[in-house]
């Protein structure tokens, strides 16, 4: 927390480029894990995280942080993930002249994320949860966000978030039951 405060201070002032590089290195993997967990599409998740950092960069000089930096970046990632899902839903509905809608051409020549078996297993398990439950679990466990902050993001009560979290954990437990001892 204190380290983040110092990084933000530097980010807004003299050695802002170095500070940004440190923030990027520190939180890049966390945000990628959150984005992949929420979206289950590696290429789109990579784009979302890149967008989050791009937006963050544009705030140099007057970025003000009231909570945790990780929480802030996690919320930005969750918001962008929702926008992507919403946009994809919209694209599925519309088809003028019965045209085929091509998915956005987001692929990079090289993949940013290198898959591994354990990570894929977890991502597949997440994908079987309803979105709100998945979001509550991911933001609480991977984003280190408090239930209060998640409740604000999801526009529901803290109790609802806690239930979503509990349901999510229970379902993950049953999915991963044979592999993970609780």
């Amino acid at each position, binding site marked *: 927390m204190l380290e983040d405060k110092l990084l933000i201070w530097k980010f807004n002032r003299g050695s*802002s*480029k170095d500070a*940004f590089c440190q923030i*990027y290195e520190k939180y*890049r993997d966390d945000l*990628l*894990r959150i984005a*992949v967990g929420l979206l289950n599409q590696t290429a789109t998740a990579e784009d979302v995280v*890149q*967008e989050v*950092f*791009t*937006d*963050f*960069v*544009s*705030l*140099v*000089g*007057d970025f003000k942080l009231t909570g945790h930096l990780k929480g802030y970046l996690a919320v*930005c990632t969750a*918001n962008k993930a*929702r*926008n992507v899902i*919403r*946009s994809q*839903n*919209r*694209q599925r*509905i*519309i*088809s*003028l*002249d019965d*045209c085929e*809608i*091509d998915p*956005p*051409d*987001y692929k*990079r020549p*090289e*993949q*940013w*994320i*290198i898959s*591994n078996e*354990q*990570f894929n297993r*977890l991502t597949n398990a997440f994908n079987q949860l309803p979105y709100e439950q998945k979001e509550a679990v991911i933001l609480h*466990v*991977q984003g280190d966000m408090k239930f209060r902050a998640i409740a604000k993001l*999801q*526009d529901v009560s803290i109790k609802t978030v806690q239930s979503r979290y509990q349901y999510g*954990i229970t379902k*993950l*437990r049953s999915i*991963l039951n044979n592999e*993970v001892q*609780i």
Partner: protein
Amino acid sequence: MNIKRFIKNTKIKTNPAVNDAVLNGLLETFDKSKAARPNTWRIIMKSRITKLAVAAVLLIAAVLTITFLDKSVAPAYAIEQTVEAMKNVRFLHLVSYNETGEIKDERWIELGFDGHQVKYRQDTPPDFLVIEDGKTTAVYYKNKRTVVLHNKENCQYQWIGPLGAFLENLRQKGKIIKENVEYNGQKVHLISWPMMNVDCYIDPATNLPLTVGAYHLSYEQPDDSIFTIFTPKDYNVVNAASSDTTNVPNWLKEQKQIFDNFELAKDALIMGNYSKASALFESVVQIEVRHNWAWFWLGTSYYELGKYDLAIKNFTKAIDLVDGVYAYYARGLAYASMGDKEMAQKDFNKALPWMIQSLREPSAASMFEYADNPRYSNGNETPPQESQIVSRMINRLKLISGQNFNYDPNLSLEENETVISAWENWFKTTQNK
């Protein structure tokens, strides 16, 4: 091991070469951001009631730092001249008309020497009247035969919300379409104002806009009575600024709830809770009948729920209030979803010129972005980068045209030049059909 630990311990690996490539790209953006966004700009723009002051400051700055695009062909008229002329404007008189030539909306604005909006009057027949006399904002409710007085600091009406940003856009991105064209029997200049999605006619004698979209502008000083708050016969007066609320009627108390509902509705829309969003937006438009964004997002909520007839109805309401091209695009999508290709095409034709223009001038897509994401209005989310705006506009174009010219969002606009040209050619071809 527990499940929480399992999640935490599941690490991700990334490709170091891509890590470096992404970081280098971000650092390039970083350099541009730092150069382009001085701190004072953002601080000023965060203030809700200094927008016009910003406009004035920007206009002054414009004279000092003009860097215009096409210096090689120096036209007789330059947009800087309009920006310069607007510095001296103290009164704005805006009027729009309906199809039968009757006044649809009339506004008077008095600007202070520092560019602040000092006084304001909006008269939108048949039943909307607001007068702001510099200290107090009076809102007239004809159906309730009541005038409600607010402290100006708490209740201020404006023509365009972020006027400073719009004027800066005119200065930087405005383009001369044609000089010395005929308009109402006089020679004028036609310019394009991207962020507003409107064309404007400029009076060559004064260099001031004669029209901004559907609004006709003039700059005369009005009679004092224009900005004088009055109480019509048989009207009740409610002082909303008073701490004593015993005199405040219930309908007015409920109205305060409406503003909260509007914010909740936007949140619900963003969250994808469309049933909740539609119910909340419905409650807003029942009271705030002139709230074009509430009508628009109500349409969006119904659209997302698959209730396309209701979506069309509400998008039409929004269009009636503000002739926004983004609303034509949205209504076109709703018509298309209902299988009415003819009506869809008609609406898309209204939006397409600006959609195509935004590929080279992304600020022309600002309203599309806002329409798609109400969060921007709250300042809760950083505005998107130009490359993101273009990428999203390409997706919209693909959606309505069925065309795909293989735009690559990872390349710069310059590198995507061939694709952008292909879209422009496609547009020209469809226009000529």
